[in-house]
């Protein structure tokens, strides 16, 4: 199964890259932005046909490596 996960910075963590992207977009004329936060997206093809088990495996990966839970949250967004 293909499992998609996104990893985002927690609310209180400063995101300097998001800030610069915000400023650049603003300079390009996109004036309606409140805030930009940058994150990561993973697509993991696991050798497991049961969606629940596949989700568990990727959650385990997120907890142990893909996300640093001091500063990041993760969310499984799609299993197919």
């Amino acid at each position: 199964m293909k499992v998609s996960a996104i990893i985002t910075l927690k609310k209180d963590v400063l995101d300097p890259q998001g800030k610069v992207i915000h400023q650049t977009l603003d300079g390009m004329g996109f004036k309606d932005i409140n805030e930009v936060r940058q994150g990561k997206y993973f697509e993991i093809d696991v050798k497991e046909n049961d969606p629940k088990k596949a989700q568990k495996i990727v959650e385990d990966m997120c907890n142990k490596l893909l996300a640093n839970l001091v500063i990041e949250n993760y969310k499984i967004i799609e299993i197919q």
Partner: protein
Amino acid sequence: MKSAVITFPGSNCDRDMHVALNKFGFKNQMVWHNDNELPKSDLVVLPGGFSYGDYLRCGSMASKSKIMQSVINFAKSGGLVMGICNGFQILVESGLVPGVLLRNKYLEFICKNVFVKIDSKDNPYFKNLDKEVFELHIAHNEGNYFCTNDQLKEIQDNNQVAIYYCNDNGKTEEKFNPNGSLNNIAGIFNKEKNVLGMMPHPERMIDESLSGEDGSIFFKNLLNNIK
């Protein structure tokens, strides 16, 4: 006294650290990241560099290397483990010291000499030093120390801050903070103070004709403390 420097793929300060340790009397051995066992050592050093190309998060891949289980066991049994720069990032990712190192506040790679102030000498690294302010070199993109409020409280309650960024007089104001790190923190200990992670490179300050000798003072004192 025996030391071991771990070389990860992408480490680039490992040889400098090897030279520094040998210069001040350690018998150093280089250890490959894919080895299982540490040689008998009084000190283990995780050097600076760009292990695994800084992929995912700096230090995250290296923290899962084969040798790290041995390093973690060594640290948990009270052994001295020091992580410099990328080594500090590996220490936080392996959970040996609390917090994380984020991208520098102004998104620039910083490469310059800075002053740092030693907070407490009640540890094997700094005890017996007769000065508090050191001039050391930093070279990093992710040195912006961050931790949760709960972690910060614990760090402060246990006097775990090792060094702060400051000026040449030891003033620790925000304007002397090069990378936006929380409370000007440049290095921290674990709770037991046998594990030290810091962004500055003492191994780059061991020769007067290069950039200075504050690193020499640190290494000489460290050897005497371990003896």
